[in-house]
């Protein structure tokens, strides 16, 4: 090489320098909070401590912060820190006031809510009844495609007869309205903020106990205490920082090593590990999360109810529970509604026990020889894929020639909506803890009913009648009949109700997991940290 051009030593040195410089680039994006916020101040005798930042390992990176669209439990969790609804669920799963100081039925078709006074939004403006009315008008507008809209069906008018009162007027009685008002996506927004052009999918501004500070995609979601929260003593924490941890094992390891203080979606494979650890607490339910196999009911051979029932009888639910969830949960041999939600649920247990002989008999009567069951599931979530895989063995033992295709989550959802496969294996949860929640699944027009191509006038009639009455005994009777009818028509096969919960270190206090009502982490609002 001639002078003026780099020789090979210079090139090699340059390469090494580049390597070193890049390696020590320092990098960035940790998503930081002021370290001073970590300090915990002990409370008076018997009182919660104040301060500190709760580090939370979240199972998913939320895809949407919209206060009226439920985009999954992770999104709901963060949204409920920033916003308030009118009603909420307490530790027992009972409906209590959130922004509502008083609430109740005025008449059979009028529901009145009196708001707390001195409620402020994070921008310092004061909450008015007009903000509440505007929020519900947004939810009710079908063009906005909100999750809450269908739950509020029958609400004809929302008005503010006084500065602190909101009135819901219904076309006909609807006993489930309080559940809709307590749902995770019935949040109150500031009209001025909304109309000021804010993007509610990516930013948040409400009246909740925490203000949204920052999101670094895939790294952290940071929230700080809102000092003017209307419940004087809350929140106890200075802040909450969520770290998305999609991998189940990594999430549990981070908890065990105290890298995070708390996690959601404790995987079934680690429930016992967490239970045995004296430094950890676990709170969970077997009310909501369930697995199922759905059929496209207008496609042969599943247009014949005997074939669907044969599949239902070919499934060994106990084996699925043991294989997929190590026994953490309950087999579902009856209806959708859990016994903790409705008393009648126990009467339906045992409708579909594992009975391969009866299944073979039904197939024979239906004229089906060697049933081919082509099923799709998602590989993205273990709570869905594991029971699907566990079901294969018992189906094959019963003589069903089953094939299972695993797809990535969004592909799977498109496939199910397009009804490309005659059956699918899914896992989900009812929106709220009332038997009426089954309308999403089997009521005409429900999203799931559409997947299943299912519609039945009798079921629709019973569900409508159940909504119209507030008589508890009568509602039990009506929903009992509705579930019996669904079990008889068998548009889907319920498999297992899985144990689902959150785990945290014993120094995390005040958190609860409602056993019914709804699947919510709203208790983070009143969680506190003991000095470690």
């Amino acid at each position, binding site marked *: 090489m001639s002078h003026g051009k780099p020789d090979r030593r210079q090139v090699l040195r340059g390469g090494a320098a580049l390597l070193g410089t890049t390696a020590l680039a320092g990098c960035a994006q940790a998503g930081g909070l002021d370290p001073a916020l970590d300090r915990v101040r002990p409370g008076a005798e018997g009182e919660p401590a104040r301060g500190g930042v709760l580090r939370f390992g979240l199972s998913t990176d939320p895809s*949407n912060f919209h206060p009226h669209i439920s985009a999954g439990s992770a999104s709901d969790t963060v949204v409920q820190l920033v916003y308030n609804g009118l009603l909420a669920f307490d530790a027992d799963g009972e409906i209590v006031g959130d922004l509502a100081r008083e609430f109740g039925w005025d008449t059979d078709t009028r529901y009145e809510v009196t708001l707390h006074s001195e409620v402020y939004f994070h921008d310092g403006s004061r909450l008015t009844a007009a903000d509440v009315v505007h929020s519900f008008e947004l939810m009710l507008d079908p063009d906005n*495609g909100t999750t809450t809209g269908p739950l509020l069906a029958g609400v004809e008018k929302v008005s503010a007869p006084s500065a602190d009162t909101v009135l819901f007027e219904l076309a006909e009685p609807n006993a489930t309205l309080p559940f809709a008002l307590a749902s995770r996506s019935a949040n109150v927004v500031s009209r001025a903020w909304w109309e000021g052009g804010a993007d509610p999918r*990516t930013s948040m501004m409400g009246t909740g106990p925490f203000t949204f500070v920052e999101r670094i*995609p895939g790294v952290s979601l940071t929230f700080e205490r809102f000092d003017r929260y209307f419940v004087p003593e809350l929140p106890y924490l200075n802040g909450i920082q969520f770290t998305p941890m999609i991998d189940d094992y990594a999430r549990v390891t981070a908890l065990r090593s105290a890298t995070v203080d708390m996690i959601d979606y404790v995987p079934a494979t680690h429930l016992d590990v967490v239970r045995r650890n004296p430094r950890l607490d676990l709170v969970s339910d077997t009310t909501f999360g369930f697995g199922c196999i759905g059929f496209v009911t207008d496609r042969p051979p599943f247009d014949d109810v005997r074939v669907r029932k044969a599949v239902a009888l070919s499934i060994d639910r106990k084996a699925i529970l043991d294989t997929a969830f190590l026994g953490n949960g309950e087999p579902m041999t009856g209806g959708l509604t859990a016994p903790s939600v409705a008393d009648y649920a126990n009467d339906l247990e045992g409708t579909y026990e594992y009975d391969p002989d009866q299944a073979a008999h039904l197939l024979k009567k239906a004229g089906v020889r060697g049933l081919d069951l082509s099923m799709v599931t998602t590989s993205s979530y273990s709570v869905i894929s594991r029971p699907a895989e566990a079901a294969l063995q018992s189906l094959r033992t019963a003589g069903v020639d089953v094939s299972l295709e695993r797809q990535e989550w969004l592909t799977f959802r498109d496939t199910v909506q397009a009804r490309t496969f005659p059956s699918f294996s899914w896992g989900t949860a009812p929106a709220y803890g009332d038997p009426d929640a089954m309308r999403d699944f089997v009521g005409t027009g429900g999203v799931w009913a559409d997947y299943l191509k299912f519609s039945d006038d009798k079921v629709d009639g019973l569900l409508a009648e159940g909504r119209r009455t507030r008589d508890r005994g009568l509602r039990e009777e009506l929903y009992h009949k509705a579930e019996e009818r669904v079990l008889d028509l068998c548009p889907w096969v319920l498999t297992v109700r899985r144990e689902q919960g959150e785990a945290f270190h014993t120094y995390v206090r005040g958190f609860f997991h409602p056993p019914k009502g709804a699947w919510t982490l709203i208790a983070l609002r009143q969680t506190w940290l003991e000095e470690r």
Partner: protein
Amino acid sequence: MSGFLVRRLGLALVQLVVVASLIFLLVRLIPGDAARAVAGEIATKEQVAAIRAEMGLDRPVWGQFLDFWAGLLRGDLGTSLISGREVMLDLPPRVANSLELVLIALALAVLIGVPLGRWAALRADRAGDHLVTGAGILGISLPVFVLGTLLLLVFSLWLPILPPERFVTIGQDPAAHLRALVLPVVTLTAASTAVIARMTRSSMLETLSADYVRTARSKGLAETLVVRRHALRTALIPVVSITGVELATLIGSTVLVETIFGWPGMSSFLMNAVGSRDYPVIQAVVLSTATIVIAVNFAADLVIRALDPRTEAV
């Protein structure tokens, strides 16, 4: 040299244009889109369609393609469909975080692998050689997710020497940053070290039996000089080539390593984006990765020319 540089840079540019165009089209072939990801599980078709329109995903693909290229030429990688943040805000630190892992792992692999391969070659068919070869096979065979999980289990939970750390930047807490770096780097380094050691060994064995090495020995040069100046330099040429390839492999491996160790790099950024069909982020990360791989291969060609000026690298 300048002709070589112009040719290689031109080729790199063409490669980047092809990659950018292909990735734009390919991501749109994946079923599902960002509208479905943000719409929630129980959204109706109409709700999803409303969000799709709001995001501009219902526009003709060619229109989106032209916008993409117009933005790219202005240095604008677009806005995330999910977070609403400018991609350029999040991409550089994520790329830097991944490069930190990958380049340190690659540097360690070279620093350990080359001497180890040379040492094994000089002891061909003896116990030391068998040990290195056996360890190499183990290193190559052990998938990173198995090794990473094992390291995490042993050194974070059973012997809590290196408990998992919350990610902090080197500026925030240098010690914590370096502690958090150890296990992911070790995980990534293992396989690459094995590959480089094996390549160095076989290349050394070949050059050690070459005529010019025999000539050097017959001239009475000291064995260390023969090995270092004559054999190793030539033997390093295929090692440099394979090092460039290893970089691409390491970037691929970071998908798992970043997930296991909670390291906020570009692979986890890409994984999240793919899961939610965040097209601008997917395009930006893939383009960055392609740029890095092309740049490193270019650098490898330069190093090979520096080691052996007779080499025509294009």
